């Protein structure tokens, strides 16, 4: 029944790690760099001086040339925390294969890569609110626990991304990369929640999981579509005209998500359909590396 712990899946994770290392060798030295600026010896950038800043970090050479006080910023060599914000709402249960399986595999792959690197990985399931998660942990020994935890999750409830993020941030988590794995089919929208994450100095990464039928519906006569989470019903005759109208709306929706992510500098990966989860993951690594 479980597909996360079977040997075939584990072999696919290991192969993914090899592929990832080979493809991105030299860029991160086997570990991801933090986007946060820190106090290591590696110079990163300057920024204007503000009252209260550590005066030891003022770049006096630059002041001599520019007559302006600027601070020297260094790459922080702190350990990275990867939060897997996994959507477990009822809508994820649909699809062929179920979107939830795709989402879990993405989460498992991300976690595997993080734990086998030098990063701390936490699992934060959510639907209408946060579910029981897996606290941040580090080390390859934790892969088994991670996979078992993901395997035990079941989709249910309504999506409320904004509320889940608020609850997540209420725990004052250490800033890190937040992989939001969801279908983003939230009537409340996704923008406010992601903005809140960014404001809290997290780095959101969007894994948008959709089913092939959602991406390209097939004609099906007279149907009444029932919302899996809210039970609302929409009567529709699935002819070419209706499908074209839906596709137009879907394209606008996807373009909106993609444009939003680009404007905010968030990574965005569309997963699902016929695309294997590895492709989605590598697409993200490619964009990030």
């Amino acid at each position, binding site marked *: 029944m479980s597909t996360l712990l079977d040997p075939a899946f584990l072999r696919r994770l290991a192969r993914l790690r090899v592929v990832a290392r080979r493809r991105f060798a030299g860029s991160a030295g086997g570990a991801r760099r933090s986007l946060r600026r820190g106090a290591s010896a590696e110079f990163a950038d300057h920024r204007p001086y503000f009252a209260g800043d550590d005066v030891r970090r003022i770049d006096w050479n630059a002041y001599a040339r520019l007559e302006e006080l600027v601070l020297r910023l260094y790459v922080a060599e702190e350990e990275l925390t990867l939060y897997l914000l996994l959507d477990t709402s009822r809508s994820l249960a649909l699809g062929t294969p179920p979107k939830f399986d795709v989402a879990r595999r993405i989460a498992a792959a991300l976690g595997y890569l993080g734990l086998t690197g030098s990063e701390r990985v936490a699992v934060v399931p959510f639907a209408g609110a946060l579910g029981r998660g897996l606290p941040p942990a580090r080390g390859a020994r934790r892969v088994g626990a991670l996979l078992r935890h993901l395997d035990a999750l079941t989709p249910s409830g309504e999506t409320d991304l904004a509320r889940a993020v608020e609850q997540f941030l209420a725990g004052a988590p250490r800033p890190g990369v937040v992989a939001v794995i969801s279908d983003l089919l939230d009537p409340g929208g996704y923008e406010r929640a992601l903005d809140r994450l960014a404001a809290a100095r997290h780095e959101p990464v969007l894994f948008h999981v959709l089913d092939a039928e959602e991406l390209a519906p097939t004609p099906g006569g007279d149907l009444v579509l029932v919302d899996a989470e809210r039970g609302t019903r929409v009567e529709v005759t699935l002819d070419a005209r*209706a499908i074209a109208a839906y596709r137009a709306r879907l394209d606008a929706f996807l373009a909106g998500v993609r444009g939003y992510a680009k404007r905010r500098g968030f990574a965005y990966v569309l997963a699902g359909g016929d695309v294997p989860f590895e492709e989605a993951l590598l697409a993200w690594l490619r964009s990030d590396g």
Partner: protein
Amino acid sequence: MTWLSPLSLLWAGLLVPLVALYVLKRRRQAREVGSTLLWALALRDLRAESPFRRLLPQVALALQALALVAGAVALARPVGAGDAPAGALLAVVIDTSASMAASAAPATPGAVTRLAEAVEAVRALARGLPTGGTMTLVEAGPDAAVLTAPTRDRGALERALAAVRVRGAGADLGEAVALAAERVRGAPGGARIVVFTDAAGEGAQVLDGGRVPVEVRRVGVGGAAADNTGIVAVDVRPREGAESPDRAEIFVRLARFASRSAELYVTASVEGGGVVASRKVTISRDGRASIVMAADLPPDAAGRGALVRVSLSRSGRAVDAGAEDALALDDRVVVPGPGARRLPVFLVGPTPEPVERALRADPGVELFATSLAALAREASAEPLDGLVVYTGETPAQAPPGDSLVLAPTGAAVFGAPLGPEVQRPRLVRWEEGDPRLRFVALGEVRVAAARTVRGGLPALIAADVGAVAAVQQRPAGETTILAFDPSRSDWPARASFVVFLRNVVERARSRRAAGGVAPGRCGEPLRIPAAEGATVEVETPGGAALRAVARGGLALVPVGAEAGVYGVRVGERRTFALRNLLDERESDVRPRARFERGSAGGVVRAVAQREATAELWPYLVGGLLLLLVLEALWATRAGAT
């Protein structure tokens, strides 16, 4: 164009559900999706909550609607376009005999009678008259009568139809068809005659429309609906030598026309009083039953007999409920009781000895010998309340009341001319159905000489030279003319002679007991003697009020076929008239007549007005329509996927 089955047009009502199938939204298959957000945005037009959608022109709907309408029209059986071309003249003959009062259901107040069914069919014909077509209505009752001249005025036709009533016993369809043919002969656009009848007549009936085709449409087609039991004869006579002077015997004869036997109650009651006798009778299928009941029936102070109501019922308690069969008209009969026991009989002239002897032998008769002159004086003072027997000479004018004329010597009797005396006439025919000749046979009677009665009077006894006995009916009485001397024949030596005289006396006694108005058959107009210009008011057994003005000493009041006592008021004088069916042929309401075409070669086509079993095609078309509806249901509900 008319419709033989206009109710079938109701099939066209299926258009409503048919269109509804196209207007109503289809039943949809539910499918769960992650979210309906995008769908709701994309398909705003599907968010409407109305259960209907716009009716779009669709070939399938148009075809189905056309098929539905065509099927409904076919089921309505349109006729007339071929039979009645434009400008055609349609003559409709309606049978108004008593059997047309039979109903398809057991006779109840709300049951539809055959006449009502026929009238409704005629209305349908009138509605379907072609452009320029006209219709004339002819009633086939005891006499044929034209109800309307050829007209296309619906109002006039409707008024004529509203006045159609069951007229009573007998319907001369042949005469009515001949009359109708006469009215439509030479119509420029062709003509035809349609006869509506229940065919409850006897044997073959010749319908001679000449060159005009005749179509007979039978009404009242049904199985058990024709079951009927009726009272076909009633007689009330005093029981001589009984312990009570008012004791009478009520003779009742029943006839049943059905395929199974029945158990009925025959109840005699005095009009305005209570039950005086009752008897339970089991009558076999197609059988006859005669019963005699005894009762005390005292006359009133004026010597008139009590009115005796004899009724049939299923229950001994509900005596007025009727026999609950096809015809209610023959379930009730009202007859006068014996009245004063002794009837005055006035002998005028040299009464033959056998006649006097026979009359004298009747204990209910009181004989008075008188003369023409004395009689004239008596009659001028007050009409004689009895029977007058004239021998030889008769007065010029008939006095009120009943009379018997024997061997008249004048040139005429009360206006009826007489022929010369003929020697040894041979009696060839006599009216066995006439009440005067009941139980009378004249086959061996020899008459020495007789005169013939002329003037068109109905013959009572016919000889080879003509009528030698006849009956003259008048409003105020009737006269039986025996145009030969009985003593110059061998008739007095036979018992039938005494029976004949007794019958004549009994008839006079009945008339006297009936108040002076001659009893008649159902539907027969009331002929009420009254002074010129006097107003006569009549109350029917059902309570309706009628009014007529007397002309020529007689008020003629047409009445419907309603059996019972008609109350009559002429000035201050109150009397009554009786109408009963008492006709075995009319009580048999089963269709049994055969219709034959006349010698002129006209076509007679007999069809049932409502043939429930022969026409299978409406069911087939109905099945096709049902299939059509199912196809539409499938195409619009399930076939969309």
